[in-house]
């Protein structure tokens, strides 16, 4: 009898642990398992958000490494501020436009100022906001590189707020709105862009193109006969560190876009890595053939091109396809950088080629290499998405930059540019005790 009582008491211990004093049932176990899964989803999404946040450091290093020492302070300030101002703009306006309820499919109209969250409500919206906020920051910071060394700082601040509040979120709502409360017209067509080749990278890349065109090239980039002149970057190891940081960050960018801790992240991780590797190798080979030497700048761009290329299709193409996608992106980025240079559009870091061009390629490739097979309809939808991104992002950014140019001026004076934006815009020098060019 004593033994039976003891056994019953022991059996009751786990039941007590659930606080109800009742024995676990199949139903309560299912709830407990779901709770663990839920927690894992939060954890994975937020860890991934932290990885994507670190990409800001990557962009800052790439950009300043590829430009002159006299612009490094300005670049640090731009990268710091496009994320800081962008976070607040995305909190106030962007997030609502992107993920708020939408009756039209063109933009959301609820969830401004994170109003979807209440202290006793479901905190998922916070985790989701954080992940989306670092994405908005990524789109904003892409533009900085293409406009480096000659942009007025105040004008850049205005641009960053607009991009994170309006340009990026509106396109985002078309493709991703239904991830929360919205419903975009593009996603209804079946547009595939898992982690944002188009939504983040092409949008940033096309806005960068608009910026570089409105600004015009840096003094000395083109000779009197229109020949392309190199303006070598001041710190290639720093640029390389930036690319490694971005590559690491992409392990949050792509696999994190599941916002779910499940087994699917393994393939996305592998695809992300293989595409980057193939992009770097093929960009190196292409530069070697074209310029007789394996060019470090192009190879670094190649890794990023592969990463941008696989971002759309990382969840729906095979690892073998990822290599092909990355490899083509690697070739494409070198040809694109050379072509854009020849068009007299001065993009010091290759942002338009890496993010705009390879983002478009990746979006097309996501349809082309779809593991479930591809159809004319899928390809048409992908093309519509690519075209819509170009028209919207380039168009809106072009109008924005033109307006800024007329109202406050987009570019520093010739004298200030010669002296360097660090001294004239910030009164500071990145490398005190050194002679800076």
């Amino acid at each position, binding site marked *: 009898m004593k033994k039976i009582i003891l056994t019953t008491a022991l059996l009751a211990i786990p039941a007590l642990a659930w606080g109800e004093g009742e024995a676990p049932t199949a139903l309560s176990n299912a709830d407990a398992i779901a709770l663990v899964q839920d927690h894992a989803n939060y954890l994975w999404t937020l860890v991934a958000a932290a990885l994507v946040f670190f990409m800001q450091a990557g962009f800052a290093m790439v950009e300043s490494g590829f430009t002159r020492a006299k612009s490094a302070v300005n670049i640090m300030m731009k990268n710091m501020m496009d994320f800081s101002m962008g976070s607040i703009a995305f909190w106030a306006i962007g997030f609502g436009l992107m993920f708020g309820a939408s009756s039209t499919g063109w933009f959301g109209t609820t969830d401004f100022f994170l109003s979807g969250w209440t202290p006793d409500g479901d905190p998922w919206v916070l985790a989701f906001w954080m992940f989306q906020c670092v994405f908005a920051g990524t789109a904003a910071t892409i533009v900085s590189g293409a406009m480096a060394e000659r942009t007025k700082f105040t004008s850049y601040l205005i641009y960053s707020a607009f991009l994170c509040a309006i340009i990026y979120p509106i396109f985002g709502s078309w493709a991703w709105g239904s991830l929360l409360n919205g419903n975009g017209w593009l996603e209804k067509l079946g547009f595939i862009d898992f982690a944002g080749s188009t939504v983040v990278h092409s949008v940033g890349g096309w806005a960068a193109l608009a910026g570089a065109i409105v600004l015009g090239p840096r003094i000395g980039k083109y000779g009197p006969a229109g020949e*392309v*002149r*190199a*303006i*070598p*970057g001041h710190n290639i190891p720093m640029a390389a560190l930036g690319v490694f940081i971005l590559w690491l960050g992409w392990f949050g960018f792509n696999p994190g876009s599941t916002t779910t801790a499940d087994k699917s992240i393994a393939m996305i991780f592998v695809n992300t890595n293989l595409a980057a590797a193939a992009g770097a190798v093929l960009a190196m080979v292409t*530069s070697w053939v*074209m*310029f*007789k*030497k394996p*060019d470090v*700048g*192009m190879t670094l761009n190649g890794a990023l091109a592969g990463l941008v290329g696989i971002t759309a299709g990382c969840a729906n193409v095979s690892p073998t396809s990822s290599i092909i996608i990355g490899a083509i992106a690697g070739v494409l980025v*070198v040809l694109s*950088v*050379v072509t854009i*240079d020849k068009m007299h559009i001065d993009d010091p870091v*290759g942002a338009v080629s890496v993010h705009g061009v390879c983002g478009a390629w990746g979006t097309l490739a996501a349809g082309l290499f779809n593991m479930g097979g591809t159809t004319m309809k899928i390809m048409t939808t992908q093309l519509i998405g690519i075209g819509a991104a170009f028209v919207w992002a380039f168009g809106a950014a072009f109008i924005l930059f033109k307006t800024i140019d007329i109202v406050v001026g987009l570019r520093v004076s010739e004298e200030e540019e010669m002296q360097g934006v660090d001294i004239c815009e910030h009164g500071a020098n990145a490398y005190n005790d050194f002679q800076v060019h």
Partner: protein
Amino acid sequence: MKKIVAIIKPFKLDELKGALHDLGVNGMTVTEVKGFGRQKGHKEIYRGAEYVVDFIPKVKIEIVCAADMVDKITTTIMQSVKTGKIGDGKIFVSPIESICRIRTGETDQDAI
């Protein structure tokens, strides 16, 4: 008293310093310099665009010595820094009027 100034390839500096030390030279001044000579500049490629580096980095060394040491020192410099390729540099010799060691106030021969 003479001053020997030599413009040499930077990677030859350590070798030269060793050789001069063995010769008994107990002081020299080294400066990082840039310039061009017959070598002109050289071409580099950055992101697909060629550009000319007009001024090539060199090292300038300055040695002040007694007049009878000049031949030995210039021979040593020629032997240790010569590669036979364009850009090996030049040696200039000029007279020195006076020398003063700041710490002790010694002058001329005593101050070398």
